[in-house]
C-alpha cells in the first residue's frame, strides 16, 4: 500500500514538473527589471540616457570639434561589459541634433579593425590611386572618460547596492575638464 502511494506520488510529480514546457516570449527591453541587485541592462541604459542628456543640455560638447570615448572603467565587483555603456552614450550623443562635434571614437576593437584596414590598404595589393593614405585620420579634440563604482551595504537579509557612474569631458590639448557629472542608482533587496 505504502509502495503504491509512493509510486503514485512520484508519477504525479513527474506529470506536474516533467511535462511543463518552458514558454518563451518577447518582452519589452525597456521594462523595469527587479530580479536582483546586479547592474542590469536597464540600469546601463538609464545612466547612459541621463549622462548624454545632461551633456547635451550643458552645451559643453560643442566646445569640441571632434571627440572620442574611452572605454568606461569598471571598478565594481561584478563583471559588466562597459563597452555597451560606451556605445549607448555614443548612440545618444550622435542622435542628438544639438551636438555639432564629430564622433571620432575609434577605440578598443574598432581601433584594431581600423589599423588592420589601413595596413591592408598599404600592403601593395591595391591600386595606389584608390587606397587611403596614412596620417589622414582626424584626431579627437576632446575625450569622454567614465568610471562605474559600486558600494554594498548589508544588514542581515537586507542589502543595498549603490552604483555611481561618473563621466568627464576633457579638452585633450589643454588637459582640462570642461564637464563632469556623477549619476547614482541605488537598489535595495529586503
Amino acid at each position, binding site marked *: 500500500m505504502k509502495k503504491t502511494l509512493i509510486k503514485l506520488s512520484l508519477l504525479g510529480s513527474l506529470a506536474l514538473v516533467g511535462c511543463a514546457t518552458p514558454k518563451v516570449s518577447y*518582452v*519589452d527591453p*525597456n*521594462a*523595469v*527589471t*527587479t*530580479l536582483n541587485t546586479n547592474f542590469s541592462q*536597464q540600469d546601463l*541604459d*538609464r545612466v547612459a*540616457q541621463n549622462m*548624454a*542628456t545632461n551633456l*547635451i*543640455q550643458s*552645451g559643453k560638447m560643442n566646445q569640441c570639434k571632434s571627440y572620442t570615448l574611452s572605454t568606461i572603467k569598471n571598478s565594481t565587483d561584478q563583471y559588466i561589459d562597459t563597452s555597451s555603456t560606451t556605445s549607448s552614450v555614443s548612440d*545618444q550623443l550622435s*542622435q*542628438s*541634433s*544639438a551636438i555639432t562635434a564629430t564622433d571620432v571614437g575609434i577605440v578598443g576593437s574598432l581601433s584594431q579593425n581600423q589599423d588592420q584596414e589601413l595596413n591592408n590598404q598599404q600592403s601593395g595589393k591595391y591600386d595606389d590611386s584608390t587606397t587611403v593614405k596614412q596620417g589622414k585620420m582626424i584626431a579627437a579634440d576632446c575625450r569622454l572618460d567614465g568610471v562605474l563604482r559600486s558600494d554594498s551595504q548589508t544588514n542581515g537579509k537586507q542589502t543595498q547596492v549603490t552604483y555611481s557612474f561618473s563621466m568627464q569631458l576633457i579638452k585633450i590639448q589643454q588637459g582640462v575638464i570642461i564637464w563632469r557629472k556623477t549619476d547614482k*542608482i541605488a537598489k535595495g533587496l529586503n
Partner: protein
Amino acid sequence: MKKLIITSLSLGMLFGCASSGNSKLTSIGSMGNIEIVQGSMRSIRNANGLITAQAVLHNNGSSTVSAFYRCKFFDTNQMQVGDDQVWMPVSIYQNSDQGIKCMANTAEATDFKFEFSADAKNVNNF
C-alpha cells in the same frame, strides 16, 4: 445589467490605463496617492533648441512610493520622435513633492507626454 456596467467601469478604472485628467500624462495602472501639482507640467525650449519637459508629483499617502516615469516626444505632426526611453525610478516621500523631467534629443520635438507608473509591477516583465 446596471450592475454589470458598474462593475466593468470599476475594473476599467482599476486596471486600465487610467487617465489622470491631464492629456500630457498617461498613467499605467492606478495613480494611487500620487497627483500632479496643478500648473507644474510644462516645457521650455533651451539654448540648444531642445525642449525639456517637467512636472511636479505630490504624494498624498502616508508611505513612500517608488514609482517610474518616462517621456515620449512628438513633432508638429504628432508623430513620435526617437525611440521609447527606459523607465526612470523616482521615490516620492509621504506628503511631499518630487519633480521629474525629461529632455528631447532633437529639435524636431515640439510636444511631450509623460508616462507614469506608481507600481513597478505594471512596468515589469516578470
